[in-house]
């Protein structure tokens, strides 16, 4: 794969990202990885009650792209975008409570893992499991920005697999026709569950799908966080200028299974090890920071310690969080009525019988 990024020491990058920002990118990637490692521990202790989805090896895609957004821009993450959500303001405590199905989790125990959002302050939207559906939804979010003449941008992630869905096609086509300020990031991690990209699509490059929608299609090295940042920044700037949708394909690799239970038996021998050894996004970035960018390794170790302390503290708090109250499941299906009634047998048979109005005898009665 061609590495299209420039080194952090290049003038173009230095002009755009300060030294603090370069360290910021490291912080978010490290936090993503460490938080997921903590979740693995909790999963093995059965404290994560559902599945666990890793983004190991894809942290640069998530962090670099989200870092190109402003606070008022709206992001729609996918299951491998924990890093994007953290950049957007999601906290490790929220993530831990979600995974552990706590009553004070962002969705009050209704949804799993990183399926949560906040569109009032931090501007990221809770995804659903139906792949591709978030593309039309984000077309509508960004259509609203256009209608209101707000200088805001939306960014939606899909995987290589989701580009096969009808929803992806309908959503990106609608957004392209309407020239919505939207960036569609295809995170090509080479597997959709067990299916390799070659069985997903006959096109050599998923970025080429852009031509069919009359929009630019860009491709970048997804394991180079600065390259990801740069390509996204350009697409975001284009959207903010009013020039419409850009499709960005990020080339990366999914080093863990679809979820933690997946033993990856379908992966050719040696492939995972090769990517881990030669193309880990954090290792590559550390080499760049301590090399060309001249960052002292001690500085990175200090960030690591800070990240560890944050995750430790959040874990302590999350473990003490209470489970949801069962009856809360009936609240908030609609704005009106605010709560659904429990079914009669949950009220106790006696009270249900007592309340059931009966005529004096069987048959016809005067109402």
């Amino acid at each position, binding site marked *: 794969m061609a590495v299209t990024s420039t080194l952090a020491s290049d003038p173009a990058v230095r002009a755009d990202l300060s030294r603090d920002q370069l360290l910021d990118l490291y912080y978010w990637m490290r936090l993503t990885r460490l938080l997921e490692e903590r979740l693995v521990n909790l999963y093995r202790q059965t404290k994560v009650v559902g599945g666990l989805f890793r983004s190991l090896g894809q942290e640069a895609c998530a962090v670099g792209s989200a870092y190109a957004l402003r606070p008022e821009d709206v992001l729609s993450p996918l299951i491998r975008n924990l890093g994007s959500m953290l950049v957007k303001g999601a906290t490790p405590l929220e993530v831990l409570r979600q995974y552990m199905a706590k009553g004070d989790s962002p969705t009050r125990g209704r949804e799993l893992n990183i399926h949560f959002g906040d*569109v009032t302050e931090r501007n990221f*939207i809770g995804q659903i*499991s139906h792949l591709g559906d978030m593309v039309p939804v984000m*077309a509508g979010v960004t259509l609203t920005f256009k209608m209101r003449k707000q200088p805001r941008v939306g960014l939606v992630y899909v995987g290589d697999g989701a580009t096969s869905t009808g*929803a992806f096609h*309908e959503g990106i086509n609608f957004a392209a026709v309407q020239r919505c300020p939207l960036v569609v990031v295809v995170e090509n991690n080479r597997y959709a569950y067990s299916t390799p990209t070659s069985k997903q699509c006959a096109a050599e490059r998923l970025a080429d799908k852009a031509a069919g929608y009359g929009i630019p299609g860009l491709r970048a090295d997804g394991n180079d966080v600065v390259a990801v940042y740069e390509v996204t920044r350009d697409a975001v700037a284009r959207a903010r200028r009013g020039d419409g949708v850009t499709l960005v394909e990020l080339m990366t690799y999914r080093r863990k299974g679809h979820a933690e239970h997946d033993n990856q038996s379908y992966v050719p021998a040696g492939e995972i090890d090769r990517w881990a050894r030669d193309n880990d996004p954090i290792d590559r970035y550390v080499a760049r920071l301590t090399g060309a960018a001249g960052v002292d390794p001690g500085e990175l170790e200090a960030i690591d310690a800070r990240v560890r302390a944050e995750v430790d503290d959040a874990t302590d708090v999350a473990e003490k969080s209470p489970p949801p109250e069962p009856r809360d499941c009936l609240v908030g299906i609609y704005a009106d*009525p605010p709560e659904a009634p429990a079914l009669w047998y949950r009220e106790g048979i006696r009270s249900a019988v007592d309340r059931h109005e009966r*005529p004096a005898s069987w048959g*016809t009665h005067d109402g």
Partner: protein
Amino acid sequence: MAEATYLEAIRQGLFEEMERDPSVFCMGEDIGAYGGAFKVTEGLLDRFGAERVIDTPISETGFVGAAAGAAHMGMRPVCEMQFIDFVSCAYSILTNYVATARYRAMLPCPMVVRGPSGGYVRGGPFHSQNPEAAFLHTPGLKIVYPATASDAKGLLKSAIRDDDCVLFFEHKYLYRRIKETLPEGDVVVPIGKARLAREGRDLSIITYAATVWKALEAAEQLEREDGLSVEVLDLRSLLPMDDDAIVATVKKTNRVLVVHEDTVTGGIAGEITARINELAFEWLDAPVRRVAAHDVPLPYAPPLEDFVLPQTLDIVRAARWLAAY
């Protein structure tokens, strides 16, 4: 005030809500310059412009999903299905995404999906459907299906102002066949309340949409020929359903016929029957019976369509059986 057809009432409702609230906008196929396949949105483009009357690609998932995203951001989109048969193309995003948004993610999703529904118009299998039962089973959605022009207008206003997604079924047979003088002013019909279309003592017909008119015809015939006093309850809202009105009519007449145009198996009549069984079993003098369409895709040829769909005479026959039970 001049009389308005059912179709004109819907158009008035759209106009008035778009005038009242700048966050209301319309999306759909051919709804702009052409004014929609049935001309429901005629004149909207001239009045409100292309930003608020959006001609979309042929992609129901695309623009229903976009409506949801816009609704999250504070807009109140109204999506037109060119024919309601095509709402099945958006079934997944409506049931999985839209219906769950508030519950799973605290995301408001105030939007309306409306479109011409129903048969009796020789439309064949893909321009005649009544897919309401497919959505009744989805918590998070609301469903209305008016039978009169004033209810169509008043319920559309309620649907647009509702803070959740409302599926608004319009019966295309009624579009230009019925008219009435609409009430003056900003009259809103509440979602979830049935309408007593005709009072009676001997038996009740519970129905909605076009078959309300067939039930009323049947009621007149039964009064004339059999001396039967038949009550007709027009549900108007299917989700939520007006249990109080259903129970009240059961207690009054003790005999119930449930009528709808949709196919019988898995149709809403089954749900209504179950509710009567649970809420008012002892008040019944006869089993609840259903009159609905045969379980076949709706055919095109008039003799076939007329056989499949419930007709006035079917209701009369069923009511006689019930009265004699």
